């Protein structure tokens, strides 16, 4: 063995002294026990430290978790058969209120109604809805609804109430009971009322309509022997003349008429054959805005206009004329009459004249004109008279007189609110005190209800059973979509209870009523499921005319109203109408289609009158929403209202909307908004009918200002090619003219390949599967705003309140741009629904620093709320200005506590039940915008996937599309060549199809179709207002 030496280091090898020292003292240092001792003796030794740490973290966790609000989700113990969380159920029902009728389909989620759709089975509305119908779901969750019966303003039980009322009714001592309602169209309810009057003999049922059609009813009685209103068929009319009837917005049955009217305004192919529509009116109505020709007049001129029109038509048709008709002294009106007469006379059997007047003589003359034109059986159907309005004004006046005379024993008020909307509401209120027993069935403490001794609140219609007969032979059913939220009771059950029925059951009554008529339970259930029953085929028919036009004319001439220098006309706004749903924040915040004003009524005046008053709305101050206030005195009543200068108003007429000025108890949204204009309704002494104008008005500026929350202040599109219009003649001569410039521009940059050729950066997305597209026909859009509210309901769009609309913080995802052009005193109007254009080359997408908005492979411009940090860059860079920022915490979805901005009670637990659970409620500080209802698209795709087939056209609909009464919006998959959207685009590609701001190469997925007006080009020609440097 060799002595091989292994060494660890040179020190060891050479065995240096230092190494030796190291070896000797291997553990040369003291072990650091001292330090450990110190550590162990420390106030907080290591183990204790860990203990403390553990304790404090646990304590902090528990303490912190205590602060978190616990929201319980309780599963069903026994799951109802039909309710699956996350899966909506749909129930057919009917919106019936004050004679307004709309068959609907109600979407419920987890047992809550959240959205109203039109019922497409109905031939009356064809699936259309109005803003009011769309918004009615929110009224179900209105916090101001009555929650229990009341006796003298105090909560009571139904037993107490029934006992008291029954006793009261028994002790009337022969004084009659009066049931005061708005128009009812329920056959079963009418039978019940019959039974009630049998039980209590002498009971009278009086129908009262605040906005009355008594003139028509009386005129028709005189003309045709029927106190009824016929069905109108605008779809068969090639010539439409309306004398102040706002049939697209507020008159009688606007959803129905809009749908009919739009059928005559659609263009198929390269030949347009539109109806021509001439409107005579005293204010700027939605219908007037859509008319081809529009003539304005003072309301007191209407009789002369009707007489002249009668004679002009008679002359053209070779019929006898009326005698002693004074000539119209205005050239424009004369021309209008001539034009209208010529139009009507050249379309016998295809013409329709409607009139909004409540004067029976005028309506008799209108009937006479329609008779000459052969409208009966063609555009007017007496086979199916409508039940929309039945109120006779004289009955109401008689009632008030009887009440004052103490002749009325009991007054049961259902639906009506005369203290507010009767022309002499104060008189009614005083008369009410003389009635021993007063009951209100109204759903809130409205102006009349607060004065009633007993309040027996009715259900909301979404909680109710019911039926309706809108037209003779047409039936419609109402079924509850939710268990009553409060201790309310059907009006009918109250009647039954007071008839001595201890267990009133309106549902059973209704079934008993209908089952035999329909043929059994199965048929009843089928009827409920379908929602409507309609005659197999309807033959239109007229009635022999036996009206005395000469007498009517003579009467009119004898009682000619004295023309005033300045006249006042009252009108209904499309959103608020008579004021029934004034407490609906969606409707209050809906911009009026014409004035674009929210949250108020005001006095509309013409630019000429404004000029005279020294008000100048010009480009420098049009954005200043503090508008002058005027004191308006008419008929002995004086009210101060803000002035809104509205092009299209006649220069000697001012207009004020009814439906505002509700009492605070009506609700937070309605209370104190605007002024009540009903006191200006006057009584036509000769006919005992209401007149909705005042002939002598004085208007003086007070010098004060008042902020009006207007959403669109610039009225001109400045000749910019965002709106393309043409006339029918020009279109038929050269269908491609209007869009030629845009097409040629595209041609220059690749034509079909514009998407890739028109840019330096051709990395446009690939869309392998579906690609969504929308087409909006400007010719069909009447600007009613149903889409705006439908979108608000579907997408949980926040209500921001008046002060925030004033700050231009409104949130609507789809707005209707309304542009005037031409003569400011009588402009042409065009409506353009504007929503996110879902650009394929979206300016918003590339500027977001955090990629919170991006593109889907289906062509959707998506918003990722969670990712959004709110730089608002996308909003700035959106050329369409459709992005909406959550400026405040509107809906309680914020990270901060107690900073809610809610002026309209939209965030109570009750109101929040209306929220669509499929759509995120956006927090403060994030951007939002139209999503093309992506949740609906996903639903439809899933359904198709489950069925194992491709998505069919029409399965995915956006809310705006579905709500539209005129089907102006078409939506679908553009990759499906058979889809309606593809066909429309193919059909119109060289004619009416255009994209807004196409030259920016944003590549929108929304296209518009050129508006074609049936007007002579020389009348249509509008000098474009174009500013150059």
């Amino acid at each position, binding site marked *: 063995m060799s002595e091989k030496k292994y060494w660890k280091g040179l020190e060891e090898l050479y065995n240096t002294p230092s190494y030796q020292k190291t070896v000797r003292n291997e553990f040369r240092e003291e072990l650091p026990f001292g330090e450990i001792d110190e550590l162990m003796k420390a106030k907080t030794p290591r183990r204790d430290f860990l203990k403390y740490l553990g304790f404090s973290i646990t304590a902090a966790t528990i303490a912190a978790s205590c602060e978190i609000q616990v929201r319980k989700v309780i599963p069903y113990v026994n799951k109802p058969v039909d309710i699956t969380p996350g899966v909506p159920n749909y129930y057919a029902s009917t919106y019936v209120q004050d004679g307004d009728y709309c068959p609907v389909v109600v979407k419920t989620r987890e047992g809550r109604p959240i959205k109203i759709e039109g019922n497409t089975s109905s031939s009356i509305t064809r699936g259309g809805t109005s803003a009011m119908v769309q918004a009615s779901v929110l009224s179900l969750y209105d916090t101001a609804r009555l929650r229990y019966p009341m006796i003298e303003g105090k909560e009571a039980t139904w037993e107490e109430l029934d006992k008291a009322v029954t006793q009261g009714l028994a002790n009337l001592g022969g004084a009659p009971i009066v049931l005061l309602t708005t128009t009812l169209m329920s056959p079963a309810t009418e039978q019940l009322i019959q039974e009630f009057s049998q039980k209590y003999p002498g009971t009278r049922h009086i129908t009262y309509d605040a906005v009355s059609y008594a003139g028509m009813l009386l005129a028709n009685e005189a003309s045709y022997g029927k106190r009824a209103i016929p069905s109108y068929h605008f779809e068969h009319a090639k010539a439409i003349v309306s004398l102040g009837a706002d049939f697209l917005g507020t008159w009688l049955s606007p959803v129905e008429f809009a749908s009919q009217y739009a059928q005559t305004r659609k263009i198929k192919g390269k030949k347009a054959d539109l109806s021509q529509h001439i409107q005579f009116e005293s204010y700027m109505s939605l219908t007037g805005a859509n008319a081809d020709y529009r003539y304005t007049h003072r309301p007191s001129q209407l009789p002369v206009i009707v007489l002249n029109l009668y004679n002009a038509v008679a002359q053209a048709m070779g019929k006898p004329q009326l005698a002693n008709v004074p000539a119209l002294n205005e050239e424009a009106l004369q021309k209008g009459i001539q034009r209208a007469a010529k139009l009507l006379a050249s379309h016998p059997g295809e013409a329709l004249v409607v009139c909004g007047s409540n004067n029976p003589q005028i309506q008799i003359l209108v009937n006479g004109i329609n008779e000459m034109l052969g409208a009966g059986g063609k555009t007017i159907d007496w086979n199916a008279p409508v039940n929309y309005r039945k109120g006779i004004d004289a009955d109401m006046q008689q009632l008030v007189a009887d009440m004052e005379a103490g002749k009325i024993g009991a007054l049961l008020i259902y639906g009506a609110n005369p203290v507010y909307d009767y022309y002499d509401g104060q008189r009614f209120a005083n008369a009410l005190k003389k009635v021993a027993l007063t009951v209100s069935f109204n759903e809130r403490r409205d102006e009349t209800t607060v004065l009633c001794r007993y309040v027996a609140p009715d259900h909301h219609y979404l909680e109710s059973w019911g039926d309706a007969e809108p037209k003779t032979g047409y039936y419609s059913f109402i079924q509850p979509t939710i268990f009553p939220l409060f201790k309310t009771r059907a009006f009918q059950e109250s009647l039954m209870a007071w008839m001595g029925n201890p267990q009133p059951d309106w549902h059973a009554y209704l079934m008993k009523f209908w089952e035999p008529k329909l043929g059994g339970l199965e048929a009843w259930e089928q009827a409920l499921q379908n929602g409507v029953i309609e005659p197999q085929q309807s033959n239109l028919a007229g009635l022999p005319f036996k009206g005395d036009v000469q007498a009517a004319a003579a009467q009119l001439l004898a009682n000619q109203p004295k023309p005033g220098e300045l006249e006042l006309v009252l009108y209904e706004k499309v959103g608020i109408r008579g004021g029934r749903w004034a407490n609906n924040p969606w409707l209050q915040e809906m911009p009026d289609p014409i004035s674009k004003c929210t949250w108020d009524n005001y006095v509309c005046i013409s630019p000429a009158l404004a000029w005279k008053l020294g008000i100048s709305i010009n480009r420098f101050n049009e954005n200043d929403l503090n508008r002058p206030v005027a004191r308006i005195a008419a008929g002995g009543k004086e009210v101060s209202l803000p002035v809104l200068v509205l092009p299209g108003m006649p220069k000697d007429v001012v207009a004020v909307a009814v439906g505002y000025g509700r009492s605070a108890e009506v609700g937070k949204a309605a209370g104190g908004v605007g002024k009540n204009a009903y006191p200006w309704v006057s009584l036509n002494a000769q006919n005992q009918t209401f007149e909705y104008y005042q002939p002598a008005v004085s208007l003086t500026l007070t010098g004060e200002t008042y902020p009006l929350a207007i959403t669109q202040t*610039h009225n001109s599109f400045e000749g910019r090619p965002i709106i393309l219009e043409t006339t029918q003649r020009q279109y038929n001569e050269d269908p491609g003219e209007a869009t030629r410039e845009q097409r040629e521009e595209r041609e220059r940059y690749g034509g079909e390949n514009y998407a890739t050729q028109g840019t330096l950066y051709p990395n446009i997305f690939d869309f392998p599967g579906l690609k969504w597209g929308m087409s909006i026909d400007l010719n069909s859009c009447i600007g009613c705003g149903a889409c705006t509210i439908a979108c608000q309901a579907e997408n949980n769009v926040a209500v921001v309140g008046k002060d925030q609309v004033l700050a231009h913080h409104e949130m609507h995802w789809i707005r209707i741009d309304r542009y005037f052009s031409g003569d400011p005193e009588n402009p042409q109007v065009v409506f353009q629904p504007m929503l996110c254009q879902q650009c394929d080359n979206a*300016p918003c997408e590339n500027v977001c620093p955090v990629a919170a908005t991006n593109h889907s492979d289906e062509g959707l411009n998506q918003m990722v709320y969670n990712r959004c940090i709110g730089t608002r860059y996308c909003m700035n860079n959106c050329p*369409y200005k459709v992005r909406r920022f959550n400026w405040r915490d509107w809906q309680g979805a914020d990270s901060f506590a107690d900073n809610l901005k809610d002026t309209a009670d939209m965030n109570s637990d009750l109101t929040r039940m209306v929220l669509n659970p499929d759509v995120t409620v956006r927090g403060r*500080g994030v951007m939002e915008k139209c999503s093309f209802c992506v949740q609906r698209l996903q639903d439809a795709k899933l359904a198709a996937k489950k069925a194992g087939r491709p998505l069919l056209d029409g399965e995915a609909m956006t809310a705006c599309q579905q709500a539209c009464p005129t089907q102006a919006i078409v939506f679908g998959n553009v990759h499906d060549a058979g889809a309606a959207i593809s066909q429309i685009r193919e059909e119109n590609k060289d004619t009416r199809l255009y994209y807004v701001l196409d030259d920016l190469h944003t590549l929108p997925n929304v296209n518009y179709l050129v508006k074609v007006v049936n007007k002579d080009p020389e009348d249509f020609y509008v000098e474009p207002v174009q500013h150059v440097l």
Partner: protein
Amino acid sequence: MLHYESTVREPLVNGSKDYHQVTEDIISPLEKKPGKLWWIALGFALTMLLFGVWSVFWETYWGIGVWGENRTVGWAWDITNFVWWVGIGHAGTLISAILLLFRQGWRTGVNRAAEAMTIFAVLCAGQFPVWHMGRVWLAFFILPYPNSRGPLWVNFNSPLLWDVFAVSTYLTVSILFWYSGLIPDVATIRDRAKKKFAKWFYGICSFGWRGTAKEWQRLEALALLLAGLSTPLVLSVHSVVSMDFATSVIPGWHETIFPPYFVAGAIFSGFAMVQTLLILTRKILHLEDYVTLGHIEAMNKIIMLTGGIVAMAYITELFIAWYSNVVYEQGAFWWRIFGPYWWAYIILITCNVVSPQLFWFKKLRRNIPFTFVMSIVVNIGMWFERFVIIVLSLYHDFMPSAWVYYSPRWPELGFYIGTFGLFFTCYLIFAKYFPVIAVWEIRSVLKRSGESYKQQMVAIEQKTTEEFMQEVQHEHAVAAH
């Protein structure tokens, strides 16, 4: 003879100074206790700052809706102020970087204050893009950091993201530049300090500077390097800021001339701000000898030049709008000038184009009160320039239906006032505890450009060449002995 500079050239340091005197003049005010005026000024600045904090708190708590911005005008005072403050910063960098590279001696008198101004201005500017966010607590989303959300990255296409990089780089480089230049002077203060705290504080701040040749050499090298780095920044930062607008589609924003236009405007406003600050500082700290009329005039000349460039840009904008024949472009400018905000455009033109023309008069260029007023006028003008570009382009863009007016509300005003508070708080503290004039850099030009030294040259300059040469040769000969 190495440091000879013609007497025709104005001296950069007035009076008869030696190195020690320079130090005394500049450093000794820092060693005194702050005066009453300083406390009042600081109190005022802090009040403004506090009001700003309150305004920002208010806006953050209630939401951006408490501002006057709306669905059409999504940016207004916030981004106007951001661009304005960033622009102001530019003069500092220009002075310290570009003028250093060009060997402009006069920069020594003003560079320290200008650099400090840059940093404080950028700090103020940075507040706006942060606090204008709807959800500021998620501001970190804007940073590209590895994350578990996919990972989800920022959008590198967005100019707003470029801003984040540009401004943060700018701030970093500016701080480095400013602080490295400050070190020798801080060391001087440390060496003179008598109090324990001051010794300790300035000791730490001076990073152990000893003034060795090696250290000086490295400092000079670093300064040159940083100057090289910052020079492109002077151009890039405001170019990037301008791209927030230039890359958009909004008429009035979408303009290719924006980068040079914005850079010129930034320098224009930056120099005006330097004037404002220095005219006050030289007066209060009695530094008239170091910040001379010559300095002020030199800066006024730059203001004139950049004002001219800006005016050219305004004319180009208008011309192109007309020439383009694009209705939206023409509309934007028509409404800019003839719309309800016409007065903003008038202010802009008056302040930025008309009034700087007065500087053609030498008397006015060298008039201190006039310069002071002009410096403020220019900054008002430049504020309105940004306001006009941002608000007056948005308020009347493509869709006439969306046209609005915009008026600010108090929290917006408060925020702006708050940034003034922040700026002046920082500047007052800086001016009290750090030398506002770079002592060592003044020393480097003293013997070449100082008044007393130049006077010695007068005798030489009066000699003929022959006399001079003879004298020099003579002196050389003596020296050789």
